[in-house]
């Protein structure tokens, strides 16, 4: 019987072997390949079982984890560099510009005589 820590009940619950041997959060970033078997015929490694076969793209999470965890002092909303900066600046420009336009429009709308 294997056990895992359940994030829902905040206690130990039953688990399958796969969860016990590959606990979430402790998976090594570098893939750990078993040394080749002395019998020559390749054995089925857990990481090659159907559940881990790449459906719809390969797992880029480990590389992204390394990228975002770089200690360069950059805040999370700008961590990916240029695309983040562009999107942030566009959004800020729209928000600031729009807010100022709001205040001007409200000022004009509060002066009925001027609008004639």
């Amino acid at each position, binding site marked *: 019987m294997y056990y895992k820590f359940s994030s829902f009940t905040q206690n130990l619950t039953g688990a399958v072997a*796969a969860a016990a041997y590959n606990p979430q959060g402790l998976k090594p970033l570098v893939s750990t390949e078993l040394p080749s078997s002395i019998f020559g015929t390749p054995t089925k490694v857990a990481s090659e079982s159907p*559940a881990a076969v790449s459906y719809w793209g390969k797992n880029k999470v480990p590389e992204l984890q390394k990228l975002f965890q770089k200690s360069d002092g950059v805040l999370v909303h700008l961590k990916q560099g240029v695309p983040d900066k562009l999107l942030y600046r566009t959004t800020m420009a*729209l928000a600031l510009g*729009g807010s100022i336009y709001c205040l001007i429009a409200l000022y004009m*709308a509060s002066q009925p005589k001027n609008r004639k």
Partner: protein
Amino acid sequence: MTHQTHLFHMVNPSPWPIMGAMAAMMLTVGLVLWFHCNLNLILLLGLTSTLLIMFQWWRDIVRESTYLGHHTPPVQKGLRYGMILFITSEVFFFLGFFWAFYHSSLAPTPELGGQWPPTGITTLDPFEVPLLNTAVLLASGVTVTWAHHSLMEANRASAIHALILTIILGLYFTALQAMEYYEAPFTIADSSYGSTFFVATGFHGLHVIIGSTFLMTCLYRQTMHHFTSNHHFGFEAAAWYWHFVDVVWLFLYISIYWWGS
């Protein structure tokens, strides 16, 4: 090098909250200018900013959790409380519209002909498209639960298939409702029948669209390997929200479509 010695999440300074507030001002002022001065620009700017800010804020949350590991068990517990409380607030939101419906329909005024449905209103047959809609949403509740169990059993293909099915069912519901709205023999202006019908079902439809978008985000994250078999709170939150949307529909169907016809 400083490391935290506790399990909580001290968030990086972020521009999104203040910019979200600015976007909210643009939405409200934009609505006023659209209603009274026939000006669309600020409203459109507000909608665009809101979407951009929501995208970036939630993108940052994914970064903080999946890439930076900040969502420890106590953090996740707080997120669970937050989602439950938010859904509870939405329940109260809908309660208001159900109150309005029962207020108008339990004691119909003479102006309505003293009856419900009011004189002159041809209601929709509850056993046609509305019943199909009920079946569609109930089925989507089954598929989202299937997706969850597949996710917990690390069955990647099944989880993706079930999520896709759930989203298709959600979009099918939206399409059917849109068609019903177009073909309906009454409008929002047709007495309190029209207003209670379209405001209640309209807000519900909006929530279906929001829920479908949330599920589509989960599908994207699942294909990108973000979820693990025991840590996938984003998906659970989406599933809770989807079940809430389903339950609201059941109340709408029983009250407005069936009892109210």
